[in-house]
């Protein structure tokens, strides 16, 4: 596999008053050009930190990052900041979670889209505005001409998310990080945005990392899925395979807690009991064990390592589903 982005043994931790907070632990992910990978997990499992750390966007004296990130043949983790920056926008770009805060409230949409065109691609102001207009049409914003002159507060959430996407794809990135692109939107708009992302990806040949907590979003939009729990990748498989034949109890529990259309009326929806383990105190044993319905004594004592099925399906469990106990 000729990989576009390869993350090896990535660890991210933060210094906090309560001790070291290990947000991402020993993550390995490989992404080929044009591929779409979903990262799922519940809130606080390290999805966003992983994607930001991969891009090197986490700054501050309290951030500790180890491991290597290789993008398109360049080792980002060994480069200086200006060098890493040269890959931003044209190499990788990111769509942010909340379209309400990810646009500058006091600047016009046109200026915000053309900004990266001017600075990164060296376009003239006029060309950049023209390109911005085309980009807005590409993300299917009606009446793009007048939107260029508007301020973010004049647009709806869905429109703003489209603008965000327009900004992210403005420099034709090879890899697009979409950090919960639909979380802040209502369901009908969600479907439109996902549809849009899918089409853009096909047209432009981008690879995409789709970070979400919604397995349903992942199912229709990705080639591979990485399930994260407590900062670790606990299962990694092709999307169709994951849903057909999951090995990790956590993935199963996640799926069970999604309401289904044929869910019996009056029956309680399953929730995963308990909470995420304390991220400043990773104890021994499997981090999911206290909440797992299949757990055995061994799970509390030893940490499982990633195991590989012959077909490349990865999971982190001693007693995976579908294996005789």
């Amino acid at each position: 596999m000729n990989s576009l982005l390869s993350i090896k043994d990535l660890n991210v931790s933060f210094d906090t008053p309560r001790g070291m907070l290990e947000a991402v632990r020993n993550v390995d992910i490989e992404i080929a050009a044009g591929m779409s990978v979903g990262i799922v997990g519940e809130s606080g499992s390290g999805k966003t930190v992983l994607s930001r750390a991969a891009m090197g966007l986490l700054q501050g004296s309290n951030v500790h990052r180890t491991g290597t990130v290789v993008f398109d043949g360049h080792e980002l983790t060994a480069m200086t900041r200006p060098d890493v920056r040269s890959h931003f926008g044209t190499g990788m770009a990111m769509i942010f979670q909340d379209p309400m805060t990810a646009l500058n409230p006091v600047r016009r949409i046109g200026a915000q889209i053309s900004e990266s065109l001017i600075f990164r691609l060296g376009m003239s102001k006029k060309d950049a505005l023209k390109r911005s207009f085309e980009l807005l049409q590409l993300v299917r914003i009606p009446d793009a001409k007048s939107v260029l002159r508007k301020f973010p507060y004049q647009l709806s959430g869905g429109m703003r998310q489209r603008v965000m996407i327009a900004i992210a794809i403005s420099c034709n990135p090879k890899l697009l990080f979409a950090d919960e692109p639909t979380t802040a939107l209502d369901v009908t708009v969600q479907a439109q945005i996902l549809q849009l992302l899918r089409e853009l990806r096909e047209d432009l040949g981008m690879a995409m990392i789709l970070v979400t907590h919604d397995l349903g979003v992942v199912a229709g939009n990705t080639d591979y899925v990485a399930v994260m729990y407590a900062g670790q990748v606990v299962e990694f498989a092709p999307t169709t395979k994951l849903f057909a034949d999951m090995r990790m109890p956590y993935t199963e529990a996640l799926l069970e807690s999604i309401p289904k259309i044929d869910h019996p009326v009056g029956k309680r929806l399953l929730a995963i009991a308990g909470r995420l383990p304390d991220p400043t105190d990773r104890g021994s044993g499997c981090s999911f064990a206290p909440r797992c319905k299949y757990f055995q004594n061994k799970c509390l004592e030893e940490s499982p390592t990633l195991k590989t099925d012959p077909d490349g399906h990865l999971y982190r469990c001693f007693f995976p589903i579908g294996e005789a106990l």
Partner: protein
Amino acid sequence: MLFLAVFGSLLPFKSWKFVYEDDLGVVPFSPGHILGTDNNGYDLLSSLIAGTRMSVFIAVTAVSLGGLIGSALGITAAFVRGKVDIVMSTLFNVGLAVPNLVLALALVSVLATNVDINQSVPTWRRVMVLIISLTIVLIPILGRIARGATLSWSGRDFVTAARSMGMRDRQIIMKHIVPNVLPALIAVAFLAIGVVIIAEASLSILGVGIPDGASWGGMIARGRNDLEYSPHVLYVPVIVLAITVISTNHLGDVIRSSLDSRESKV
């Protein structure tokens, strides 16, 4: 009101220095002297207009300089964080801890004194010194505002978003931080203009300002001596001073709310 005062200096009045020897201590609304004259025979209206020029010039210059330097320092400190920030905000706090007027007083008296006491300090140098002192007083005040505002804005997603598109820090500051910090800064700057006018007047009253009465403070200082005989000499500049300060404050408010697209439209 401000504009009238600024352009008033071009109006065809006799120089404020012109001494009407026959009209000492004339009360306001007399023919020939709308606001009266003082005991030395200076026409108060003319003095007032000349004083406006001086006071407003000093205040505006000091605030612009202080604002420029202060916000540059404040924004940089907040954006870079780390050691730079610690040093900078400590300096700001030290600056703020010293009472404004005392600091300005000290600076003026040190800077504006000649080694040779008998040699008088030229007016332009006093003005320069006054401006510099007031600027130094203002830097920590405005710098802190800029730092605080920058801190709250630089953590926003759109800054990370700009960074993720490969924007340089300087570009991010100019394009994203400054436009957001500006409204708060302008509001405070206008407040500061009022404060500085008062500070300048206070310094003049204390005798370290512009000595020869070309400013409001100087007028008040001179009028103070004759309070018993001709109180209007004191009242006139005081009232004008008060009106000016109130109107700059109000102007600051208006400008802020019209610049602030978030507040006005939500």
